[in-house]
């Protein structure tokens, strides 16, 4: 794909993303019905869950890019893996911030060690560790490879963490998605939020990859000059 097409694609993406976000905000705050017991507070759920789903997508992308890097050793996969890890951590930061805000009035506690909450926290820790490893390896080829290996380990670990907590510490009411689904009136808001967050992820990944490839290009030019 040439540069101009890429730039146009980014513009289109930017436009669609903007519209989707406005739509999601409208659906979540105006269109969706007021929840009977939790009131307006429940509306945070749309963003909270959408962020979690999108964050998981990002870590999935990180895993896939890591596997691709090990197999192909093409630096573009490393750039994608880095972008995915960073954005994933940001999305899960949103999850971890919105979670307690909602939980305190509803459950009367800021935090419970429920599987979902704990998994979110552990995922955050795992991928912060991933970013730390990257930070402390100077050689880019080596950094890419070691990061890919750790990303694979982290992603395989995630379901094990999930089931471990679930089997031993299951004290938590099953979330709405599993217990019979959400109220049909809330569905548009929910899916709009998920869709716009996923679009945001795509946009952020593209921008972050572009930034990283510019940084690498800079390094290359500096190498040639010096």
């Amino acid at each position, binding site marked *: 794909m040439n540069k101009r097409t890429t730039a146009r694609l980014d513009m289109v993406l930017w436009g669609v993303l903007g519209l989707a976000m406005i739509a999601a905000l409208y659906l979540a705050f105006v269109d969706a019905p007021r929840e009977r017991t939790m009131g307006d507070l429940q509306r945070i759920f749309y963003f909270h869950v959408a962020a979690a789903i999108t964050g998981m997508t990002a870590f999935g992308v990180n895993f896939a890019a890591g596997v691709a890097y090990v197999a192909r*050793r093409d630096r573009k996969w490393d750039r994608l893996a880095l972008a995915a890890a960073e954005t994933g951590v940001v999305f899960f930061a949103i999850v971890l911030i919105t979670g307690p805000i909602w939980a305190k009035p509803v459950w009367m506690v800021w935090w419970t060690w429920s599987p979902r909450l704990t998994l979110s926290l552990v995922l955050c820790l795992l991928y912060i560790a991933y970013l730390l490893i990257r930070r402390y390896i*100077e050689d*880019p*080829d080596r950094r890419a490879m070691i990061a890919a290996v750790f990303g694979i380990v982290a992603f395989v670990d995630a379901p094990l963490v999930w089931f471990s907590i679930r089997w031993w510490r299951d004290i938590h009411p099953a979330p709405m998605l599993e217990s019979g689904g959400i109220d049909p009136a809330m569905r548009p808001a929910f899916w709009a939020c998920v869709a716009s967050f996923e679009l945001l992820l795509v946009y952020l990944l593209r921008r972050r990859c572009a930034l990283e490839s510019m940084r690498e290009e800079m390094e*290359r030019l*500096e*190498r040639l*000059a*010096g």
Partner: protein
Amino acid sequence: MIEVRGLAKYYGRQGALHGLDLAIAPGDFIALFGRNGAGKSTFLRILAGLARPSAGSCRIAPAPGGRDSAARTRGRIGYLSHHTSLYPDLTALENLRFSARMMGVRGDDGFLAGRIGAVGLAGREREPVRAYSRGMQQRLAIARAFLHDPDLLLLDEPFTGLDQAGADFLERYLLEARAAGRTCVMALHDAETGYRLANRLVVIDRGKAALDARPAALPLDAFRARYAAILSAPAGGGAR
């Protein structure tokens, strides 16, 4: 035997090699020169299979009749780096015993003691390596690296830390290897030693081969002058 094409290795902003081309034939005994940071060590590491090139390729032909596998290729290489790769808490004999097992060399303690004796450390094989001086450790490192009689020798400034007797031993060993038709690439700084030992002289500058000549065709003084000219050219610079 070795085909090096457009070999490049970058470490972020720094580059060690920028498109090095070199064809190494069996029996080539190459003395590799170049200023500090010219990429000699990096080149040897890539040849040894310890580092992956950022671009370009480096192919070592499989042994006649042998299959091509990374582990098999490693078994034909003797690599002596800056590091001795010796465990300081093990004795000389234990170090060699471990290496022999790993290399698949069959040999009892008598054989290993013989190798230790050959580098002038007879009678000290049961001392822990920690008690050795730097020069003695380098001698033992030589015995270790070439324990399996490899047909490709890669040496990174092998004379470092050796006293006269040690240097004499290494020189004899290398001349014998040369006579036996083995292939060798060694990084050096001393022009005279390299000229004496090698049958091919290569100077790396700015990540490329700046000079590639046979001692037979280039008198020592002429080689010295050209080597000095390459070294005195300003380092770096954008003129590439």
